[in-house]
């Protein structure tokens, strides 16, 4: 019994956002850059899927875990995890194969598909038809086995706790922990959509068109997968499985106690500067712009400095290849994306609430 508690307790604390997120980022880069060819082996994915299944199966013995995972709302997300793992593996393994072929001077694996045309009928229509049947069967069986998770009629004065967005938006909701609603709810989603729309205009690299490759598109694949796997899927997992009442963090084996309290003492950058470092003798300036001066400097500095750094050091070739307009847009998007994990780390390490905090005008960054 003690061992079980020890294990569950350890897993609970390892799942802390700061720890798990950091670990995920590290593993992500290690897999892509260091362990890519190992990851691409068939037995790797078999092991991953089996271990995931085993983890879930064993954890089902724990009532809290079982309740959360088997909730009809959450079942598709569990399924999604297996699919994500499989398709990521599938892509990476094809990348590795093609990269090896390219390195050996051979054609890529599916050259024909990539270079030549195929018929709409039967190749496309018939396979689409088959897919539609498969989806139909899946939906029917699913609806028989799992009843629609209906809840009580929505009551505007009595919201459920935790109030959760639909599962595909839980990543966005998780962002709300770190950013002001107008950023996390409006600007970031807008940037995601705009950024995706802009991809074909910014990405003028003709390689990898119609076939999988990593070596030829390192930056594009890494940045996309980081945004998708870490900043979207992982946050959905958080929102679904690890956020309980009052949006508090709960380990997978922790009872969702509505009374759980966490110390929430977040401090704005300006407060740090004036209170902690006693600038002006600890007195906050009356004028908000003066008060938030350092915040603005930090934000503008981040973007200006970041762009300079990308332009002159990190993505120098890109700047040359893409031209100014494309490159600055790309840099802005990349820096915006990076700002999320940066802010998360700042929150975990120094309890930073807002960099620019002007609640008087509902403007917080």
């Amino acid at each position, binding site marked *: 019994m003690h061992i079980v508690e020890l294990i569950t307790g350890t897993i609970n604390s390892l799942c802390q956002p700061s720890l798990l997120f950091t670990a995920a980022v590290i593993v992500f880069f290690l897999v892509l850059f260091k362990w890519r060819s190992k990851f691409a082996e068939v037995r790797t994915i078999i092991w991953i899927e089996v271990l995931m299944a085993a983890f879930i199966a064993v954890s089902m013995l724990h009532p809290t875990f079982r309740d959360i995972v088997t909730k009809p709302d959450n079942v598709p997300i569990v399924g999604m995890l297996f699919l994500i793992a499989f398709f990521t593996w599938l892509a990476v393994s094809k990348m590795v194969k093609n990269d090896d072929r390219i390195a050996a001077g051979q054609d890529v694996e599916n050259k024909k598909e990539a270079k030549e045309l*195929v*018929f709409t009928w039967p190749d496309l229509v018939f*396979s689409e038809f088959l897919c539609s*049947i498969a989806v139909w069967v899946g939906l029917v069986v699913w609806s028989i086995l799992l009843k629609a998770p209906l809840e009580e009629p929505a009551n505007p004065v009595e919201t459920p706790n935790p109030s959760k967005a639909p599962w595909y938006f839980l990543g966005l909701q998780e962002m709300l922990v770190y950013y002001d609603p107008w950023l996390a709810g409006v600007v970031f989603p807008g940037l995601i959509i705009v950024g995706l729309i802009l991809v074909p205009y910014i990405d003028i690299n003709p390689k990898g068109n119609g076939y999988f490759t990593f070596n030829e598109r390192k930056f594009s694949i890494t940045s996309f997968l980081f945004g998708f796997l870490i900043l979207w899927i992982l946050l959905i997992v958080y929102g679904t499985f690890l956020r309980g009442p009052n949006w508090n963090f709960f380990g997978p084996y922790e009872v969702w106690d509505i009374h759980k309290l966490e110390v929430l003492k977040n401090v704005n950058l300006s407060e740090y500067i004036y209170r902690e470092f006693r600038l002006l003798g600890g007195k906050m300036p009356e004028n908000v712009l003066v008060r938030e001066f350092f915040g603005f400097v930090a934000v503008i500095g981040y973007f200006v400095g970041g762009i300079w750094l990308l332009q002159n050091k990190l993505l120098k070739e890109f700047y040359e290849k893409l031209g100014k307009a494309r490159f600055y847009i790309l840099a802005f998007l990349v820096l915006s994306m990076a700002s999320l994990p940066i802010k998360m780390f700042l929150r975990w390490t120094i309890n930073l609430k807002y960099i620019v905090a002007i609640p008087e005008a509902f403007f917080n960054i």
Partner: protein
Amino acid sequence: MDDRFYKKETLIKVFGFLAVAMLVASLWMILDDFGREWKGYQREFTVLKKKKLDKAVEDAKAAIDAGSLKKAQEELVSAEGVIKGHQKDVDDADKAIDELKTKEKIATGKYQDAKAIWDVQKYHYEADYGHNVAEGHGDHLGKKAEKALTRLEDNWKKVLEVRNQASVLQMELIDAQKKRAGLIAARTDAEKHLKLVRTELDKQELARDAEKFTLTKLIRSSPIIDLASPVFRLQQIVLPGIRDDFYFASVQRVDRCTTCHLAIDTPGFEGEANPFKTHPKLDLMLGSRSPHPLDTIGCTACHEGRGQATHFVRSAHTPQNEDQKRVWEKKYGWREMHHVMEKMIPLQYTEGKCRTCHKQTEYVPRAQKLDRGVQMVKSAGCYGCHRIEGWDHVRKPAPSLKRVKGKLTREWILKWIRSPKSFNNHARMPAAFHQANITTDEYKAYNDAEIVALGDYLMELSEDYAPNHPLALGSVEKGKELVASIGCLGCHQIDDFGQTRGRFGQAPDLSMVGSKVSRDWLTSWLKDPRHYWAATVMPSLRLTDPEISDIAAYLMSKRNSEFEGTAAPATTEETQRKVLRLYVQRDPKFAPATDEKVDKYIGTLDAHNLSLELGKNSVMRYGCFGCHEIKGLEKTPGIGVELTEEGTKPVNKLDFGLLHFEHTNFAWFDKKLENTRIFDSGQVKEYLDLLRMPNYEFDEPERGSLITFLLGQTAQKILPPAAKVLNAREAKMEEGLRVVHKYNCQGCHIVEGMFESLADEAPAREEHEKLKRLLEGRILVHYEEDDSLGPPPLVTEGRRVHPDWVYPFLQDPGRTPLRTKLKVRMPSFQMPNEEYNQIVSYWAHYSGDAEYPYRQPKAVELSPTEMEAAKTLFTKLQCLNCHTVNRNPTPEEMEGGSKGLAPDFIHASKRLRKEWVVALLQDPNKMIPGTRMPGFWPDGQSPVPDVLGGDSKRQIEAVAKYVLWLGQGHN
């Protein structure tokens, strides 16, 4: 083929596999729908119903008298024989009828055609010229119009002609049919006789055949086909007055419970298991002639639950107890529906829901458990601290403390506050101190400090009071006898006479009162309760001084020596300072409370003022003023949460603390009422953050009643016809009944219209009657041998008495001794005038047929014949064995006899209505159930046939008149 991207064989294989999967999924879908739980119940019910119907047919068959059946059958056979004799005539008649029928059809067709054509012509004429005629230009229509009119009139003649031809044929046909009927009359008669014998059987057979599960029905109810016109289908009731509030829209409620509860309003299935059982109270609920028909009330109005669901679990059934829960889990896979707000109320609390529709009355007839709850709320005084809509103007439940100094000693008050139950186990007052959440010695000391402070504060606030009627004590024995007989026990209870009404009755338990009050206070109180407390409802029993002495002697002998022997709670100045400090630190007037400021303030108080200041804070914290009148705090609202909508408060708004048990409101109420401080357990709290609701230690039935009450306090808005709206008559009755309750008339009398009884065969009768006894006529417990020695029942009172007589009687019953033998006294209540009127008005309206408001009693005159007859009857029927005429019976007469039990006739004329006297003489038991008065004219038969020709009506009339005549002072 090679240039195809996918391999054809693979695609076909995949297609084959998916096609099979699709077929399987489709079949599964169909079977899943076909096998839905409720369809299973309906199939099962078909079999059950068939059994019942078959049995009914068998029973009907068995009930037929074999002799009369045979006779009827033989009659039919012989009739057939007779008709065979002239079969040819019958055949001819048939043939003639056939021919006539054909002819008549043709003729009628002709008439219909002609009429149709004429109608069209008429329309055209009216359309063309009718408007002109209507507007007064009929003279200038012109030639064309005249022509059209002539044609119309001509055609009408033709139509009439054709109609006449058809009528002639119809007449001929009727004649022919009559002729034929005459020929076969014997058979028709025989058939009619046979049918008469078989009436019930035919009816049952018809019912059975209608329910027969035919091949068509089988096909209609098979998978897939059952989507068209299913035999097994959802049953639903749309409820007109009950709306579901979905926050953004309110919709009529729909109950589908009858989809499985198929016989819920059909008698005959009482013995079946659920869901096929008949409702156990069909006379009250769901029956078409009951006050709550199924199509107005439905099911969920009382039981709650999700009416639209058709699945045992998803309709949110709630088990009554752990055992049932286990059975359900096994049988139905029951689990709690977390997201359903309107879960079914467990059966034992269902009565609470009566309140949702019956909002205008204080009590709901026949809802005994709820009524007991209402009475508990009243007596325990829940509404003192918790606001409950509709209870705002009820008088405070506990005695006024404005003159408490004159009644109680400081020491007694301290000991009582510490633990009311240690003084008297039947004390109503709850204990606010030394409860389960006071665990440390420090907090216990704080509690004592507050008790002492409360005592000091109350004594300080109290006005002086000097008893005005001190008397020496008399005989304990005589006092005991008096208390037992004059009616004290209608409201109070004393251990010597059995503590029959528990803790929560109208008035305090007096078993220990000798240790509580002083002799002088008691004698003054008994003499005139209003001298000490003007607003008390305790009436005067018109006691003489010797009686007061005796009763006081008895009551003063009722002591609790153990309580007297214990020391009063004591405290130190230091502790009191500590506790006051806690209060002051939180006092907004001192915010922000620095130690210096607080200490300085507390330092200025001397020991006495310290105690008073703490007392003041404690009174505010514990809310004593909710129940007691305390000077300066008369209008301060109670300290508890409002309970008006407690029954529909979301469960997550209830603080379960650190306890783990069933998350339902009723389970929470139960825990809270059992131990009001339980939810503090395990929590770390500051002294002033501890729960403070006093502890009543309610026992299980008491908690059950209170939970029933609470679950009825809902936010639901029910409209008529589901909601009960009092009509003018009922409103008047309710007004009067509230007065009746206030003064506890029902403590002594059976009051009609209050807590009605259940029918003898009702399953819950026993429980029902037990609860009823807690509510009504409880003094009668002491008159088990002969309840005619107890207070008379107030039944048919409105038809019985004249208001002009009642009004002065109620004001001073002592002036009009009606039944001299009764020792129990009708008290003088000294109510406000308005309340007397409300009682009288309630009687009149309850009886319904009594003329109201007032009618002068007319002087009666008897004719000499009547006078003579009445006198004879009076002697023969020995009326004066029990009744008297304008005199008190002698003690010898009362001993053993019935004299003095029946009213003196001298009051009859002013008091009684003649119609009532007549009705009483006809059937005394109907007018006064359980009366000793014998019925002399059973079923209208006269016992004295030689008076007035034995006409019972005239005899009764004469006697009634004579009684009233005697009341006019004649002898």
